[in-house]
């Protein structure tokens, strides 16, 4: 029998029992749509969390901790494979004060290597990079932390509004537990202002200086503090892999050498593993719905076979092979599965779209919080992989549930069938 004749044959049979087939397709559609929408929530949450993590940090960054980090070790790290840059930032660990044109503020001195910083996106909004130990770059919010001392008590203290480039300011250090700062003043010149951080809630009040400044500051510190164990600077090292794929390799190598490392990749990996299991669980629950629908398909096909027993007998008598009979019935159940799946996919995309549009509004209304609506939360995502998985499950289940009835059809005894009353 030619394929188009087979399709024709199946179509005629389906036409004859429109209502029954329709109800069966409806059940298959509901089961499949349930699976897709349910699992899409897993994909949505996963995606939202993933974006949240990726937004907040640089993905190829690896934080490296070591009890005795120093410049030699840093140089060593730079030479490693797959490493793009190593940023060794050292911050002053004691109280600090800067004064500019009578405005006073507390700014954190961070010593770093500008060459390395530049490789990983450190950029200026104006000015240039420092060229000697008295030149510094200041963070984008530096001025906002320079306050007129007389207005400190006021609700809106007045802050420095003027230009910063070329300005000199004095920098002093002191101990938190002492009221007076160390008397030594260091005069610094602002030659650049750093770009604003990507996230608008992050404020950058730092003073960025070259490591050339360290000896002077250390001298001041040691002249006041003679505790062997206390250090003026504490450092942190970020290693940047060339790209995301290298992160695991680099961080594993570092771990093996006794460094404590932390990277976003580790966190993402854990998240991905968790969500893989979570999504699999959702698909499993959804599959139960499809299995319930499959009972309907099984019933419909069994009835179809029973009803057509005599016709099947005639077909066999005039020479239809058992294989053909089986195929015709399998095609019918597959058709139910395929149509059900197609409708389910369309419906699921609709439901997903509406959910993403309406749910944030409902949630924010319920919590009385406008913020949530503006947050970038996706409740439901249907990637093509999910469509493939759901279709495969749904159509396979449809065919499996049609398999027994189809077998039953092939087993029909010609003589018994022909004996049936018309």
């Amino acid at each position, binding site marked *: 029998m030619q394929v188009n004749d087979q399709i024709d044959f199946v179509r005629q049979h389906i036409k*004859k029992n429109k209502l029954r087939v329709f109800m069966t397709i409806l059940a298959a559609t509901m089961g499949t749509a349930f699976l897709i929408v349910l699992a899409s929530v897993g994909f949505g949450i996963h995606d939202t969390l993933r974006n949240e993590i990726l937004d907040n940090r640089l993905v190829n960054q690896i934080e490296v901790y070591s009890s005795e980090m120093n410049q030699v070790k840093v140089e060593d790290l730079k030479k490693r494979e797959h490493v793009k840059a190593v940023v060794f930032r050292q911050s002053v660990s004691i109280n600090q004060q800067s004064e500019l044109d009578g405005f006073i503020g507390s700014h954190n001195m961070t010593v770093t290597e500008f060459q390395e910083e530049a490789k990983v996106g450190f950029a200026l909004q104006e000015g240039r990079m420092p060229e000697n130990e008295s030149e510094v770059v200041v963070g984008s919010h530096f001025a906002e932390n320079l306050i007129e001392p007389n207005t400190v008590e006021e609700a809106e203290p007045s802050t420095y509004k003027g230009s910063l480039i070329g300005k000199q300011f004095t920098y002093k250090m002191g101990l938190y537990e002492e009221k007076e700062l160390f008397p030594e003043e260091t005069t610094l010149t602002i030659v650049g202002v750093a770009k604003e951080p990507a996230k608008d809630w992050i404020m950058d009040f730092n003073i960025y200086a070259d490591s050339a400044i360290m000896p002077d500051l250390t001298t001041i510190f040691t002249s006041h503090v003679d505790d062997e164990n206390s250090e003026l600077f504490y450092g942190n090292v970020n290693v940047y892999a060339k790209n995301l794929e290298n992160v695991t390799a680099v961080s594993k190598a570092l771990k093996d050498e006794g460094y404590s490392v932390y990277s976003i990749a580790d966190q993402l990996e854990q998240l991905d593993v968790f969500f893989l299991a979570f999504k699999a669980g959702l698909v499993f629950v959804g599959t139960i719905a499809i299995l319930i629908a499959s009972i309907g398909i099984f019933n419909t096909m069994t009835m179809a076979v029973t009803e057509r027993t005599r*016709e099947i007998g*005639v077909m066999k008598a005039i020479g239809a092979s058992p294989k053909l009979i089986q195929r015709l019935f399998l095609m019918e159940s597959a058709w139910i599965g395929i149509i059900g799946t197609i409708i389910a996919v369309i419906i699921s995309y609709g439901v997903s779209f509406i959910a993403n549009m309406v749910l944030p509004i409902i949630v924010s209304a319920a919590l009385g919080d406008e913020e949530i609506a503006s947050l970038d939360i996706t409740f439901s995502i249907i990637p093509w992989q999910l469509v493939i998985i759901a279709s495969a499950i749904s159509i396979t289940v449809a065919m499996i549930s049609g398999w027994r009835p189809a077998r039953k059809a092939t087993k029909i005894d010609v003589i018994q069938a022909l004996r049936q009353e018309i």
Partner: protein
Amino acid sequence: MIQVQELTHSFKIGKKGKERKIPVLKGLSFAINEGEIVSIVGRSGSGKSTLLHILAGFLKPDAGIIQIGDVRTSTFSEAESAKFRLDHFGFIFQNFQLMPGLTAFENVELPLKLAGVAKKDRQKKVQQLLQLVGLTEVQDHYPNELSGGQQQRVSIARALITDPPIIFADEPTGSLDSETEQDILLLIQSLNKTRGITFIIITHDDTVAETADRVYKMHDGELSEGGVGHAS
């Protein structure tokens, strides 16, 4: 054309464990020649239909050999049997056995579909046969819109459509009035003459048996030649 040797068959009846064997065919041997009309007569329940079912491959015999042409069909699997039927046999049944959901035309067309003949090649052939059996007028009618005689003509056309060398007919006129019966028998005879088709007709009716070249009598599971055939 058909050679049968020592064909034996019995049915098991009764509940499992307490089955009884009822022998229906007790070692039949006979031969049917190409182009003959052979009729098998006998009382109801004598095993005529069972013999036909075995010859057609609907039923496997307990023992015995069936040879059709050069082919030993008694050892066929179910699928082989089906394929052989499609290529070599036509069937005419007492209650016509048409597909209720198909028109007269589509019923005649069905075996060609099963044989994988393309649509454009089917059309003409079906038309020709419908004309031959005189049903062109009603080709778009469904079986329940046709008289018994018309339905039987449809089933004859269906039996002929694949040009089989052998046609089996089990009580072909059993459901028809005597006038229609005559029409059908004449049609069978003319098909036998013009196309050389071998007919094996099962009947309990002497009028039908008279159309045959030879008549076998079924009695008590045994077959004997003789009786009312027109040649005898």
